[in-house]
């Protein structure tokens, strides 16, 4: 699927560029995008290093039990087959907490950690497990309680009431999350697995 999309994006881009005479712009875009990608990876080094260090502290001190307590009902519902005290469950819970609290740059490190741990439970190393798909579905619906970025942007553009969209946003993310989980549950039966 991703192979097809990637091919389609570049193929259609090049064809359109050739037809509209924008080939120069495309060459420039290729290399400036590649540079931007490496920049993103390196800016991730700092947050990853910091938050993975914090994560180890949270696990070792036993503070992780607080998160487990609060989010366990939800996590059990979504990931019934991940053992309760497995590091994968810890990372999933930390990722969800970070998203809910609007701790933007902490969510990605915890999420990547969760994927690594889910991979240790995965029978086939190149095919996504059911749990990974569920985790991704929940993650892409960006379930949150505090949409910090948008509130800041609204305040910056002179809104009289920057937070009036918090309620509508939380409701919309809830709808997205319910659809994501439902779609995941239905589609997983039809999608290829070995």
């Amino acid at each position, binding site marked *: *699927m*991703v192979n097809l999309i990637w091919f389609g994006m570049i193929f259609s*881009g090049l064809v*359109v*560029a050739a037809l*509209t005479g*924008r080939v120069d712009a*495309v060459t420039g*875009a290729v290399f400036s995008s590649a540079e*931007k*990608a490496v920049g*993103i*990876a390196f800016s991730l080094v700092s947050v*990853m290093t*910091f938050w*993975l*260090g914090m994560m*180890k*502290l*949270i696990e070792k*001190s036993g*503070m992780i039990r607080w998160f487990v307590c609060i989010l366990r009902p939800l996590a059990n519902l979504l990931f019934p087959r991940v053992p309760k005290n497995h590091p994968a469950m810890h990372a999933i819970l930390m990722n969800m907490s970070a998203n809910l*609290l*609007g701790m933007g740059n*902490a969510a990605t*490190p915890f*999420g*990547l950690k969760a994927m*690594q741990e889910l*991979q240790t439970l995965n029978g086939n*190393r*190149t095919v*996504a497990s059911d749990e*990974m*798909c569920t985790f*991704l*579905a929940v993650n*892409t*619906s*960006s379930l*949150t309680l*505090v949409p*910090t*970025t*948008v*509130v800041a*942007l609204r305040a910056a*553009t002179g*809104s009289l*009431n920057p937070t*009036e*969209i918090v309620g*509508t946003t939380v*409701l*919309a*993310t809830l709808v*997205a999350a319910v659809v*994501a989980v439902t*779609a995941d549950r239905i589609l*997983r039966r039809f999608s290829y697995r070995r």
Partner: protein
Amino acid sequence: MLQAIISTMAAWVIPVFIFVTLVYAFAKKVDVFDTFVEGAQEGFSTSVRLIPFLVGMLVAIGVLRASGALDLLIAAATPLLTRLNVPGEVVPLAILRPISGSAALGITAEILHSRGPDSLLGRIASTMQGSTDTTLFVLTVYFGSVGIRHTRHALAAGLLADLAGMLAAVTICNMVFG
């Protein structure tokens, strides 16, 4: 009031989180610095392993944007989405949101600037921006980092969620603010 709470929260959540984590670990007699360093070891290798996936995806997005193909896609999707009550002005946002986080944020900022954050359009754009995520980016990076090649139905579920989130944003805003 709510704004005060949110901006206070945004400012305090990370310092408080760090404080509580450290104090609790210290009280439990964990060697705080050694443990931090032990966990932090993985940070560099994990990030660097993402470079090929990021380069691949960002180049494809860059080509799509620079060539004008994305504008064609938006033009093609506009009649479809306006039929679903999505205002024409936010269609580019709806299309770009799952593909590129920075581009989507740029469009939201532009709408808030030109139409005003407190207009109906501004509110819809804000809600959309906050209630969906960069599905393609998250998928590429998360699966890429552990070497998953068959992503099964994850993309379909993610894009369906994005569509649902967008339509929900429009409908809810029309009901609440319209």
